[in-house]
């Protein structure tokens, strides 16, 4: 059964989505356990695939029994095995969290909500493991559609935001489709590795169709990823969405799009083409730098807790895009590791925001008033996430920043290093502002020994299904930080095969 694992990762959420759609209408309570079961199954399948990839290198799983260029195939190597494992684990954690969130916010649409939730995860997983460019478009469309719907189920502000998201998302996806069309025109094949071979065989580097195809694909992916100049739709899209939707989309959707970009740059176009022939990667690094700075400053200006976090995502996207376009091996390793560590960090912080919202019903930053005493567990979870976002040593965030800065220095883009440091400082200010309010209480009280008014007495610790995922994520962040050697070695031997020149 294990050699079927690649497809099982996808099948579990997919089939259960349909079962939930059919059965869920009648019995609402059955939805949640089903969702959990399916996601646990897909976590198992992705882990098995990861182990097989480590042992036997890249796996190629032919769908429908046809050999690659004719039929579609899954091509799983170090990179997407790791990303698949991250996606499934994050999905499982959010599923556990979602029980109270979904029931409290859209009580009568529980079965629809969970179907879309599972389809979103199936779409993302499909995008991660597929080896076929057009298939990636179809799955991209599925995850986009489900995310529009998940957003639109929130309050009215979320519906308006999801409308904007729909328009921008469709433009992004259509650009990607156009780009694939251009590639198909010149190479005649849709399978990623095949396209790459064709590009080299008929040495098409010169032709401007490939160049435009490359631009279209990268721009399309950037729009979906909310990279700086094209990020307008992200902030209020995630801020007003139902808590569970923002908790699942925050960490995953942008990260998978970054994975798609890396896959395109490395496997399809090849680093030689993407970095040397085009050689405007320095411009992109500058774009990323502006993105990081803008994201951080944007976050500073926000009062609403979740909107602040969405601006942080924009800054993180800037990290990763900058890391990739440094055209340097350590930078690339750093950005891939950042995908994994950042998915968990953002998840931890979004879960925290979700718990605060369900508990206090308030969105703004002062909602955290004096919570150190009342919700110590949640606060500890939040602390680990915040430290990791700032980059305090033992956490994963520190190590990903460590590689990124190293890459920056190697490739001589000093502005990138400065931007990274600046944004970690801004993160520090942001999170300590929250910790301070949590520690003291919103209103500064005079006098020597201030005991807070205990009007918040009724707020007790979040329910188990909410706090457990938060603490689990915090543990994973710490674990990633300490045991990052193994993960990095997997990434290393994935990146080394493209023998990126270490620093131009």
């Amino acid at each position, binding site marked *: 059964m294990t050699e079927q694992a690649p497809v099982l990762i996808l099948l579990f959420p997919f089939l259960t989505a349909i079962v939930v759609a059919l059965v869920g209408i009648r019995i609402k309570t059955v939805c949640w356990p089903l969702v959990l079961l399916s996601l646990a199954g897909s976590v198992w399948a992705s882990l098995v695939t990861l182990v097989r990839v480590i042992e036997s290198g890249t796996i190629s799983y032919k769908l429908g029994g046809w050999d690659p260029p004719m039929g579609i195939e899954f091509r799983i190597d170090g990179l997407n095995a790791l990303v698949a494992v991250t996606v499934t684990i994050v999905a499982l954690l959010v599923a556990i969290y979602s029980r109270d969130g979904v029931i409290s916010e859209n009580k009568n649409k529980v079965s629809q909500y969970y179907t879309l939730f599972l389809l979103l995860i199936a779409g993302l997983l499909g995008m991660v493991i597929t080896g076929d460019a*057009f298939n990636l*478009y*179809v799955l991209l*469309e599925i995850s986009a*559609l489900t995310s*529009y*719907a998940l957003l*639109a189920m929130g309050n*009215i*502000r979320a*519906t*308006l935001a*999801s*409308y904007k998201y*729909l*328009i921008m998302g*469709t*433009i992004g*996806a*259509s650009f990607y*489709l*156009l780009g694939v*069309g251009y590639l*198909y*025109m010149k190479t005649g094949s*849709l399978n990623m590795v095949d396209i790459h071979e064709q590009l080299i065989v008929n040495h098409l580097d010169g032709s401007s169709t490939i160049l435009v195809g490359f631009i279209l694909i990268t721009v399309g992916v950037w729009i979906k990823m909310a990279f700086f100049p094209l990020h307008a739709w992200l902030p209020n899209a995630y801020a007003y969405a139902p808590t569970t939707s923002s908790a699942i989309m925050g960490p995953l959707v942008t990260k998978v799009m970054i994975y798609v970009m890396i896959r395109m740059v490395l496997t399809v176009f090849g680093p030689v083409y993407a970095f040397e022939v085009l050689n405007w990667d320095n411009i992109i690094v500058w774009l990323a730098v502006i993105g990081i700075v803008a994201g951080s400053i944007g976050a500073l200006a926000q009062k609403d807790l979740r909107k602040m976090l969405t601006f942080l995502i924009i800054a993180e996207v800037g990290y990763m895009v900058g890391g990739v376009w440094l055209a340097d091996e350590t930078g690339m390793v750093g950005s891939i590791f950042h995908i994994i560590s950042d998915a968990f960090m953002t998840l931890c912080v979004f879960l925290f925001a979700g718990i605060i919202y369900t508990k206090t019903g308030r969105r703004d930053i002062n909602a955290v008033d004096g919570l150190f005493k009342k919700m110590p567990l949640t606060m500890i979870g939040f602390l680990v996430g915040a430290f990791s976002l700032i980059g305090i040593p033992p956490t994963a965030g520190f190590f990903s920043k460590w590689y990124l800065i190293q890459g920056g220095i190697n490739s001589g883009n000093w502005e990138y290093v400065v931007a990274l440091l600046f944004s970690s400082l801004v993160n520090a200010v942001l999170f300590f502002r929250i910790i301070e309010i949590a520690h003291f209480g919103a209103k500064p009280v005079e006098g020597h020994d201030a005991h807070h008014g205990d009007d918040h007495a009724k707020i007790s610790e979040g329910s188990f299904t909410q706090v457990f995922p938060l603490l689990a994520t915090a543990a994973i962040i710490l674990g990633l930080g300490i045991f990052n050697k193994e993960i990095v070695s997997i990434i290393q031997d994935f990146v080394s095969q493209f023998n990126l020149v270490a620093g131009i």
Partner: protein
Amino acid sequence: MELLEGIADRFNYWIYVILMMIGLFAMISKNNLIKKLIGMSIFQTAIILFYVSISYKEGATIPILYHDQVHGAHHEEASVTETAAHHDAEQVAHEASADVHAEASDHAEHAASSDHDDHAVSHEDHGSLEIDPDLFVNPLPHVLMLTAIVVGVATLGVGLAITQKLYGEFGTLEESEILEQIKSAK
């Protein structure tokens, strides 16, 4: 002259670019929500036109085998040579595609033979049925476009549903008015 000939030769690509620009313009700058959706569908049809125009071949028919060809397969060479000859006459005028033809035919030869051995168990009567790939339009883009059309429908449907909900809430379809209402409400 060369430019004109260039445009004439790729006429449908020009249309595709113009259509795409109209669609994009509408999507971005139009204020009314429904107009944005219309812009979006124009944009998607432009892409479909682009894909279909890739697969076009000079003088090729739709990618479905004729009735006779299917049964023709039963009596092997006779029917194939007869149809090929008929087509040869007609194609001799397009000297440009001659080399493509020659090269394409040996392709078919090579594909057919290689395919032949691995299908050892396949039925004898099908045998090495000779189908000249240049006679038929390339089916792959058509398949891709089926998917793109369906995706277009789906996005349109969700878009309309959202607009309806917004209309129910704000009573207007003009984005500017909606934004004002939000600002005033906040």
